[in-house]
């Protein structure tokens, strides 16, 4: 079976582009599902009493879930053609508490073409952050995404 890849190409991307926002309600149910799937069973992420005993106000989303929310944002935007090469500046500034909705936001901040093993490859830097009710909770950091290049336009874009 020949499957088709649906996704962005480098020449379709422009600096300043805003990625479609991802909104993730942080319920107990979701945090428990996340813990079960990403294996971070630290009680601060699913047990209110325990989380409060460590100085937090409530249980809060775990690191893997937060980082993978950045991947959700990127994958929703770039589709099947993109590859995440690096994540930088993923800094957790405040807890993402249960009972809130976390928004994941991104903006294209840089583009360039590099020589890859199989020819030119587009490199897109996306500034990403998470926001809660009181502002930015994670980041802003940068996700570096590789996209295929239309070689007929690569010199112009570079």
């Amino acid at each position, binding site marked *: *079976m*020949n*499957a*088709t*890849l649906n996704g962005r190409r480098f020449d379709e991307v422009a600096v300043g582009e805003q990625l479609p926002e991802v909104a*993730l309600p942080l319920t107990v149910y*979701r*945090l428990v*599902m*996340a813990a*079960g*799937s*990403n*294996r*971070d*069973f*630290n*009680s*601060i992420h699913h*047990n209110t*009493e*325990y989380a409060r*005993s*460590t*100085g*937090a106000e409530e249980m809060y989303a775990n*690191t*893997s*879930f937060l*980082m*993978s*929310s*950045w*991947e*959700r944002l990127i*994958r*929703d935007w770039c*589709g*099947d*053609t993109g*590859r*995440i*090469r*690096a*994540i*930088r*500046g*993923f*800094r*957790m500034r405040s807890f993402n508490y249960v009972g809130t909705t976390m928004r994941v936001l991104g903006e294209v901040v840089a583009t360039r073409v590099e020589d890859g093993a199989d020819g030119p490859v587009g490199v897109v830097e996306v500034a990403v952050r998470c926001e809660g009710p009181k502002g930015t909770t994670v980041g802003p950091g940068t996700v570096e995404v590789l996209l295929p290049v239309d070689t007929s336009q690569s010199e112009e874009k570079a």
Partner: protein
Amino acid sequence: MSSTGATSADWTAEWQEVIDAIGRDFLDGATTWGGDPVERGAIRRYLEPLELDSPLHTDVDVARAAGHEDVTMPATGVIAWTIPAAWQPGQVLFDSDARDAQPVQTAINNQDLGIGPKTTGFFGTDIELDFDREVVAGEHLGRRGKRLVACKPKETGVGRGAFMTWESEIVSRPAGVVDAEPEVVGRIRIGTYAYVPHQKEEQ
């Protein structure tokens, strides 16, 4: 190991031996392997709480069209798939029926450094990841080494402790081939804050 000394004015001095250990690989180059290989079912479960909808992770035909041998692991899954098994046959993991009792051992909570103050609070602060290539179902991932690259004592709203940064290589071998030479597929830097929680009256 020294006592916590959390109420002393010079509490940061207890962290000096940890600061002095910057550059040390606390695992001496050993690899800590994930509890399970990357496999399709676990990938699917990883996607569920994220509602992450990409056939690269679920449809082997699409994954192959993209040049992969099998469905790909979400890139951020390197954290989950390098966490060791929580339990081994013969071990007792739960020895108390107290509501909030913790397991006897845990693969992810704060690990005793063997030096510096004893801390009871712990959370991640920041992460950097580099991916040399994508990982697919059928690979088994691990973290090689655990080098301390930074340690800064600081009092925060939740307690007194230190921000530390740890660096490891992400390595892969085919599932079930334990003697295969590990291949480096990425690198990870993890920032943590290990601390002694404030007493309620101090908050």
